[in-house]
């Protein structure tokens, strides 16, 4: 995580990018990919690198749903809420997940093992309803199957 110890890797990451504003979003994306979330220190470093105010960087980062400001859980669960998944019952799946791990979308469980996110379409609508766990796409899900999947991860 980008605390004192990882500063050097953050610095070397920043060094790969020019100072143009155009690099702001790609830079935030790479920071998040590397460190899982955008910490206050990381935001400050990005702002410094691009000569922008922290406010400006937060303004952009909070506009986009992709960016997180708290660390995700060990397992990150994404439930599709797109149209195809909706008509095939995705809200039951979301509820089943909420029940079995006790958190709402946008939250991370207290022990840090799970986080939950709602996504509008993965583009795998033909396999609706779709659940993505740690970047693996699972198609034709039901509430019960999802619950089992989560139990297996434990």
């Amino acid at each position, binding site marked *: 995580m980008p605390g004192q110890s990882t500063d050097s890797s953050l610095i070397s990451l920043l060094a790969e990018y020019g100072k143009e504003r155009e690099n702001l979003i790609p830079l935030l994306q790479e920071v998040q990919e590397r460190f899982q979330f955008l910490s206050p220190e990381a935001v400050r470093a990005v702002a410094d690198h691009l000569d922008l105010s922290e406010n400006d960087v937060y303004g952009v980062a909070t506009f986009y749903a992709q960016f997180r400001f708290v660390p995700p859980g060990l397992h990150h669960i994404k439930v599709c809420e797109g149209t195809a998944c909706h008509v095939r019952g995705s809200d039951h799946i979301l509820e089943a997940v909420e029940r079995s791990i006790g958190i709402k979308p946008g939250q991370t469980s207290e022990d840090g093992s799970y986080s939950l996110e709602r996504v509008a379409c993965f583009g*795998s*609508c*033909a396999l609706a309803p779709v659940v993505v766990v740690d970047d693996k796409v699972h198609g034709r899900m039901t509430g019960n199957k999802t619950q089992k999947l989560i139990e297996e991860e434990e």
Partner: protein
Amino acid sequence: MSFQTIQQQAKTEWELFDRPDRFRILVGSATCGRAAGSQEVIEKFREELANRHLLAETDIYEVGCLGLCYAEVLVEIQGKDGRRILYQSVEPRRVADLIDAQLVQGGIYEPLAMACTQSETDTSIPAFSDLEIMQSQVRIVLRNCGIIDPTNVEHYIARGGYSGLARALQMSADQVIEEIQQSGLRGRGGAGFPTGMKWSFARRTESDRKYVICNADEGDPGAFMDRSVLEGDPHAVLEGLLVAGYAIGADTGYVYCRAEYPLAIERLQQAIVQMHEKGLLGANILGSNFSFSIKIKKGAGAFVCGEETSLMQSIEGKRGMPRSKPPFPAVSGLFEKPTNINNVETLAAVSAIMEKGAAWYAGYGTEKSRGTKTFALAGKITRTGLIEVPMGISLRTIIEDIGGGVLDGKTFKAVQTGGPSGGCIPAQYIDLPVDYEHLAEVGSIMGSGGMIVIDEASCMVDMARYFLTFTENESCGKCVPCRMGTQHLLNILTDITQGKGKPEHLDTLRKIGATMKNGSLCGLGQTAANPVLTTLTHYEDEYLEHIDNLKCPAGACRSLIHFSIDAAQCTGCGACSRACPVDAISGTRKEPHAIDQQTCICCGSCRDACKFEAVLVS
């Protein structure tokens, strides 16, 4: 390198793809194929082939999406006899049988065989093009998807790729624009603006710098056409982008692709490297004085960034908010320079048109809507998938012939087109020709191509509420009509679905909808009320049932329904109580069960689990 030399090389490489002395296995491995387990299937093929000492004489390729998503994992096996068989729903446990049946014994593995795909007819099995799902389709944009190795530029070139660009470079920019105008191509991103005309505006603006952008944001939740094309045939899109760049006089292109499509982004990156290697990108492309470079930008999860002015803000590293037009992007767009933006599918059609000519393309479709359109067919339909049809084809052909009708023999209620900007077309219009004009006539839009089939179990008020949840969440908040309008619409719709609706609500919905249409800054707000307005037009009685009688006729709105068990039908098998997530169902084995109404959360799991239709909704 001259283009002839490049083509010659590609031809040689293509011949290696189809060798009589080797076995060949193609596995559909786009995102949908992977979700269905294609990687595990490939692993298993390697293992079983090795067991039989056949691995050394077999080539295994990962290909894009053939569009038959319901039948994934799709595998095509070609033996040394040249016979090519397409198998559906392949699971790892069937792989050994497939190999033995076709590659060892020279027959066909009947249980999973779907069609033959070689050019010669095979009397024992139907040809791929004769399948009911394929008969009415015309594949122009999807010409290579599932057929070539998308990571190999030689395959694309061998099948005619980049000859359109080579031809364009021999023509003047104005001639290229004229050709696209003649083809009648209209933008496939939603609005249907004539592509050639749009190019001519950007061409006419004088500037030291111009840009072209490929819009691959595909934000409509329930659409995956652009993803499939990018994953299955990235060069078709990039070639179109080059042609657009040449036509308007741009030297830089951007592809703005949504971050939820990691495989598409990977394919684009690979494709760009290969283009450089072939001299199809960089300085003096194919020896001409046209130079071009392409950058890929990942979206960051904002629907409004599909809107062109927001998208450009996003590329510039800002909050993706739209601005008022004019000035149009053709005059002042990205970095305030003249910019042309087109959708993925539009550009994939451009490369085909440049290769085969405007007249050929214009030969498909209707007078005002030329060519073909891809649709992502999903929802309650038997054969979900990606299809491409000539414009003007009837909804009935799409839903019944290609899609195989409504899932589980249920009754067809409506089809939703155009996503959050579109509307629901009711069953009575099933013979409607699908083109821009006819869809608009019934209050919907073509949109980008999402087509969600809805059956009797879906409530239209709930559908409207669903879309408003989406647009309310995605509204960027810059203009008041959209920000406040989506909130009000959503609140009212939520009230109605919870039995708190009032008769005057319907009028209020219509009024807010009209205000949003007239007053919003961008297309998001201007069209966000469409799902409400079209369902109000076609399903007012369903709204009234909720308001006046506190009933949801479809049995979908949970505040208005309750579940019970029909003792006469219940066999006491216990499937329902096992499925119930909150343990609301009890009963002795082989005796009728009962649902505790206090505990029940109306999730419907018991109804899905029951094989005897003993769970009643009222």
